[in-house]
C-alpha cells in the first residue's frame, strides 16, 4: 500500500507544483507562488521517501507502524487529489 501511495504522491505533487509555477508565471500572483511552494514541499517529501525507501534504504518502516504510515500517506494523497480536482473543476458561470 505504502509503495502505491508514494508513487501517487510523487506524481500528484510534481504535477501540482508544475501547474502552480506555470500559473504563477502567467499571473505573477505571489499567492500562487506560495501555493506552488507548498506543493513543492510535498514533492520533496515524496522524493525523500522514494530515495530513502528504494535507493539508499535510509527509511525503514517498522511493521508496527505500517498502518499509521499508510494513513499518513493516504491523507497526503487525498489532500493533493482534492486540490488537483479543485483546479480542474470549472467555475460555473451564473
Amino acid at each position: 500500500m505504502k509503495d502505491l501511495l508514494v508513487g501517487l504522491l510523487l506524481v500528484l505533487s510534481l504535477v501540482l507544483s508544475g501547474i502552480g509555477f506555470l500559473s504563477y508565471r502567467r499571473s505573477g500572483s505571489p499567492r500562487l507562488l506560495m501555493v506552488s511552494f507548498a506543493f513543492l514541499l510535498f514533492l520533496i517529501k515524496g522524493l525523500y521517501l522514494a530515495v530513502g525507501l528504494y535507493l539508499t534504504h535510509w527509511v525503514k518502516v517498522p511493521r508496527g507502524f505500517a498502518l499509521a504510515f499508510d494513513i499518513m500517506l493516504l491523507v497526503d494523497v487525498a489532500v493533493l487529489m482534492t486540490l488537483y480536482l479543485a483546479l480542474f473543476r470549472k467555475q460555473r458561470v451564473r
Partner: protein
Amino acid sequence: MPSHYPRYLDGPSSRAISVIAVALPLFILPMFLLVVSGAPMVVSLGSSTTERLEDNDGDGLAEFLVLDVDIEVFEPGAYGLHGSALDGAVTANAGPLDLPMGSSKVELRFSGSALSRSITGGPISFDLEVFPRDPSSNSAKGTYRTMEDYMPEQFEAPSSGTGVEVRILGMEVLIESKVLRLSINTTLPQITFTYSGGSGDSTRSTIRYLEVVAYEDKNGNAVFDQGTDLKKYEAPLNTVDWSLRTDFSQGYEISLHGVVPLRLSGSATAVAWAKMTFTYRSRSLLLEGWGQKFDIDLELWQPLDADRIAVVHELRDLSGEQTIEKGKGGSVQTDDPNVLRLISPRGLTTGIYSWSDEISVGEASPQTPSRANTTFTVDGHVASIIFSYPLSGGTLSIHHDPVIGMDPANMPKERNQMGFLSNKPLAMIIGSAIGVLIVAGTVVFRSWSERREQRALIDRERKGGD
C-alpha cells in the same frame, strides 16, 4: 614600613601564630567531623589508582576495563568496593576482601559488554565507594577519571569461549548464554532463570533455597517428612549474611557463600555452624549453553546429633503463565533421574530443574560417593523440593550439583526484534502510473468537455443564425 598587624601580632611570633591559625583548623576540622559523625573513618581511597584493558582472547578487543583502585586502610578488616559510571549503566563490585592496614590495590573489573553499549567515546568518570563490612563505620567515596580516552568499538563481551556473557548489575550477577539467562542474587540463595534475549519475561522462574534442617529420621525412609521426623537443628537461609566471590581469570567462577547458624529446633540460639556455598562455573555450562550445572556445598563445622540434613527449597514460576510438571520431556536429554519442568500455556517445555541422586560426602572434603533422597510436591506454579543428605559416618562435608536450564527447542522469537516492511519498487512505479493516468484522464476529460462545450456553443450560434 609600619605593620598592619597589631603590635602583639607583629614580628616572628606573628608568623608562628599565623601558621598555627591555619594549621589548627585543618587538624581540628576532620577531628570535629569525625566526632560529630560518630563513625570512625577506617578507610579512604588513595590517589594512585590505575587503569588497564584486559584482552584475554587476544583479538584486539578488550573484555574488561580494569581499575586497580588504591585503598588506604586505617583499620584492618573486610571491605567491599563498588564502582559505577554513566548513571549506573556500567558497574562492578569487588569483595568483601580482608585488607591489612596500609595501602592496598583492589581490582574493579568493568565488563566490556556494558562499556561497548554505554560509552560514547572519551574519558570515563567512575564513582567509587569503598565500604567496610562493619555498618557502623563510614564508607569512603571518590571519583576516578580515566587517563585514556575509550571508544565503544574497543570493547567486547567477556566470553568463556562458549559465547556466555557475565555481568554484575548491582545486587545480581547475570550469566547469559545463547539460550539461558541466569540471575544470581548476591544477598540471598535465589536464582532467577529465563530464556536469554528480549523475550525472556514470559518464562521467568526462580529457585529459592529456604531452609537447612538437620533431623532425626524417625521412620527411617531417608527423606525429610515434616511432622513425622524430628527436627533437631534448623536455619532459615534468608537470615544468613551471604557474600559473593567472583573469579574471571579463566572463564567465570561465581560463588555465593554464607555461614549458616544452626539453631536447636524451637530455640533462638545457634549451637552449630555450617558454611554453605553455591558455585557457578563456566566449565559447568552445559552444551550449547542450555543449562548451568551448579554446586551446592555444605561444610559442617561441628558434627550434628542428627541422622540427616535437608535443604528445603522451592521452584516458582514468576511469569504467572507457566505450570510445573515432574518428569522428563521436551528436547533436552538429561541423565538426571529427577526433573521438574516448567510448561508454557502452549504445553511446551521451557525451564528445567534437574538433579541427580548421586552426591559426594566426606569428613574433611566430599570425596566419598553417596546418595541424596528427594521429596517434592508440585502445586501449579510452585514446587516444594527437599534434598535430604546422610550425616552418617562422620560426614561433615556434602557436595551436590543440580542443573538449571531452558529447553533450546522452544525458545520463543525475540519480541523486540523489530521487523520492517519490505519495499516494493514495482508497486511504487504502479502508483506513479496511476498518478499519471489520473492526470492524463483529467486532461483528456477536460479537453473533451471543452470541445463538447465549444461544439454546443457553435451549434447554438448556428441555430441562432438560422
